[in-house]
């Protein structure tokens, strides 16, 4: 039973769908961040798998940069979230209507 590239792409898609469902379902901003991490990880699997089956290292490079972006996103996002929580005491998306959008 051979594991092919399609197996990995299907797995990546399933994980991406789980992440998307999380993004659409969650109202708490911290839970929303978790769902974004799942999205980034799903694409990382796809990049690593393609890198392995094509025999090219570029996929792994892109996965590295995605990990770096995820780390900086968490740092900035959590900082903003803490400031918002200090000011309002809530981290729900529905409360963020100060721009009356």
């Amino acid at each position, binding site marked *: 039973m051979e594991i092919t590239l399609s197996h990995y792409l299907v797995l*990546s898609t399933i994980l991406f769908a789980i992440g998307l469902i999380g993004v659409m*379902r969650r109202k708490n901003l911290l839970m929303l961040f978790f769902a974004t991490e799942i999205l980034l990880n799903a694409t990382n699997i796809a990049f690593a798998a393609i890198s392995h089956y094509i025999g090219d290292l570029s996929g792994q490079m892109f996965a590295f940069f995605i990990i770096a*972006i995820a780390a900086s996103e968490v740092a900035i996002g959590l900082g903003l979230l803490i*400031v918002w929580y200090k000011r309002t005491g809530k981290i729900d998306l529905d409360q963020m209507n100060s721009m009356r959008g």
Partner: protein
Amino acid sequence: MFEAIAFYLFAALTIVMFTITVMTSQALYAITAMAAGMIFISAFFFILGADFLGAIQIIVYTGAVMALYAFGMMFFDTTRDVVEKRTNPQIVFVLGVLAAVMVVAIFVAPIVSNNIQALYPIQEGVGNSQAVGMVLFTKYLVPFELAAVMLLVAMIGGIILAGKKMDRSLTLMAEEEIGSMDESFEPQEGGH
């Protein structure tokens, strides 16, 4: 054979863990399931021969990112249940599946059309970490340095945002007090 067993085992575990992360109403369950899922994902990288990426996944995601989330959760009220959006589940399901199929099309299209060829082929007799280092510090040197600058900016931004006026609680102050505090804080360095 063992590769297939490992793939299906870790695929099932990862999907279960991430489903728990997305579906649970407890923030602590979500963060622990998320950390477990990250470690299981690193197993795929080891199966695929990307050893360095797997190690980075464990160190950065379960070491740094999850610790940062746990640190952030100490600021928030995590004991109460998370309230969810009341959206139509059918719309959510259809949109999720549609977007996922689009992602598969994006990834499969270049392979099907056979346009893809290895620009930086994996060399024989060289370990994965060594090969990654050789490509990263030649072809991808500029993005690497940019990523370093980006991480530095993110670190400074995180420190300034989270550590600003830690000795006073902004929640317990009125809007006017916060406004006057910002004014008294600004002109110390001679303005901008």
